[in-house]
């Protein structure tokens, strides 16, 4: 039933621009692999090339032992779910689901049985006679999923499947998809720009940036052990601190952070520290001293905006019980745990500290 997808040296050029540049990875059989990256990172193009909707400039695509690269779209036997559902608007829900069976000339009886089975699976049996414009966004996407699954594809490709839905529906549908996958076990490849979605749903994450693969690994590895500065900054929020390497530490004026043993002496370096790795020290003494600029509550956590002695701003997510009485205006000591140090990329020329896109912790 399930088959791995293997992508080898896949490249797609539009004129001089390489949308996808020498991408290789394997999506293991029966697992969910997420292609994670910002918009324009080439992740959708990779998916569309696997489906046959785009023709690669170079590279090969396999489904198990079988090479797909030169096969036409209709012969690949992949299920594809589009961001904007792409339901056939002139067909009812059941006609939509039936479409893939009808073009394969399956018998009417087996078509009907399969449609019933799938509508039950996506919990839309009562909506069989409706037209797509009579459904909500979440329902439409479930119809799209049922339609993609109907011809029993060996792999399921999902292109930002929750991208057009509002936050609440997205959460529900994500959990529902997770359960569905556990039940069906079909090899799935999910394209998303939402790191939370990738970390929650995927067994394996492929982080892409500017057409290239930055890192391939399990969600926990991607999060805890980023291989590149891009991954460290993009997956999860992080405080970005620029300094210089001396004796295995990143020096930032008033203080220094460990974890730079692998970097050459004297190079410019960037250290990433996650907001939840910034702790308020219980007493005098710690990694760095800072002034508390702002304390805001995020439910069970407090978000502290702090100015370090050297002038850099960092954000800390601290449980209320571990604030040790820190208030706005206080001068406190901080522990900065698990810093990840990288040679500073030439592109990140901006001085001082910045913080990656805000992450609201789930309660």
């Amino acid at each position, binding site marked *: 039933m399930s088959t791995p997808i293997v992508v080898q040296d896949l490249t797609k050029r539009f004129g001089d621009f390489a949308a996808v540049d020498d991408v290789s990875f394997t999506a293991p059989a029966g697992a969910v692999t997420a292609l994670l990256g910002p918009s324009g990172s080439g992740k959708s193009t990779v998916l569309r090339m696997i*489906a*046959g*909707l785009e023709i690669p400039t170079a590279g090969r695509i396999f489904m198990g032992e079988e090479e797909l690269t030169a096969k036409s*779209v*209709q*012969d*690949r*036997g*992949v*299920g*594809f779910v*589009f961001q*904007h*559902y*792409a*339901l*056939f*608007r*002139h067909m009812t829900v059941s006609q939509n689901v039936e*479409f*893939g069976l009808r*073009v*394969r000339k399956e018998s009417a009886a087996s078509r009907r049985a399969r449609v019933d089975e799938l509508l039950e699976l996506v919990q839309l049996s009562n909506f069989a006679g409706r*037209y*797509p*414009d009579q459904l909500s966004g979440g329902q*439409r996407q479930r119809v*799209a999923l049922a*339609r*993609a699954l*109907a*011809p029993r594809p060996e792999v399921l490709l999902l292109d930002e499947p929750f991208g057009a839905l509002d936050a609440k529906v997205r959460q529900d549908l994500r959990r529902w998809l997770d359960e569905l996958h556990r039940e069906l076990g079909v090899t799935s490849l999910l394209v998303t720009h939402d790191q939370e979605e990738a970390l929650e749903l995927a067994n394996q994450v492929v982080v892409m940036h500017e057409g290239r693969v930055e890192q391939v690994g399990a969600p926990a590895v991607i999060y805890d052990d980023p291989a590149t500065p891009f991954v460290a900054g993009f997956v999860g929020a992080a405080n970005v601190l620029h300094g210089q390497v001396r004796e295995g530490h990143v020096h930032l004026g008033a203080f220094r952070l460990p974890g730079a043993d692998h970097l050459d002496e004297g190079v410019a370096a960037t250290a990433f520290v996650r907001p939840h790795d910034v702790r308020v020290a219980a007493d005098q003494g710690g990694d760095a001293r800072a002034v508390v600029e702002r304390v805001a509550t995020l439910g069970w956590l407090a978000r502290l905006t702090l100015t370090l002695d050297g002038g850099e701003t960092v954000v800390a997510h601290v449980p209320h019980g571990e604030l040790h009485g820190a208030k706005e205006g206080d001068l406190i000591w901080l522990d900065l745990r698990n810093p990840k140090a990288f040679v500073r990329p030439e592109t990140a020329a901006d001085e001082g500290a910045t913080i990656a896109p805000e992450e609201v912790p789930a309660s």
Partner: protein
Amino acid sequence: MSAVAARDAVPTDLERARRRRRLVRSLLVIGCVGYVAVLLLLPLIGIIRTALEPGVGIVRETLTLPEVRHAFYLTGIITVITVVVTTVFGLIVAWVLVRQRFHGRAVMNALVDLPFALSPVTVGLACVLLFGANGWFNEFFAARGIQIIFAVPAMVLVTIFICVPFTIRELVPVLEEIGLDEEDASRTLGASLWQTFFKVTLPNIRWALGYGVALTTARAIGEIGAVLIVSGLIKGKTETATIFIFTAIEERQTAEAFVVALVLAAISIVLLVLLEAFRRRSEKGRGHTT
């Protein structure tokens, strides 16, 4: 207290504004209705009244005349061929214009509208130039004994030329609107290009296509300028319904002219109803947010 006073003052001002707006609106509506009625409806009423003046019997008498029958037959032939050709090629051209990016696309896009801008008489003249006695293609066809100019083929050709834009102009915005997603979905579900076209694309554009066909039909039936030039005015041979009216008036057969005009007007009204129905369906279809 001042608040209360202000509140009292407001309704009179509002009332005045409301009355002014109502007046402007009524004047606009009356003006528009009058304009449409005088310009569009009066001629139609005139034709009906004049045609039926000698009594209803004149209709049957006229429609049994052999030259009238032949004129309608010819109009029918030209219209059917025109509709088939412009529909098939209109679909292809519209699809290429929307789905393909190529050098000269903008030029092609503009070229499609040429018949809108060109006077039909010019089109007729150009056809004479190409197929007439000293025309570029005359030798080729004359050698094979095929009469183009002053015969039905030229009349069909100029009508097709004039009707080219209608279907294309209706289809392009609809194709742009529906996008590629549904066609892509169909392909991934195992449908071939043909299946995708007939089961997915065509149902999505059918009302716009119907609208284009109805417009083309109306134009093909009503065309006279270009057709007149290339017809050579051979009585009973190259006389379409519109040309019949033209010559009948010249020859003071006013009654016959008006009856034929009445039939053409009746066809127009049927087409108008169809157009309205197609337009509504097409807009409803496009309103879907899938």
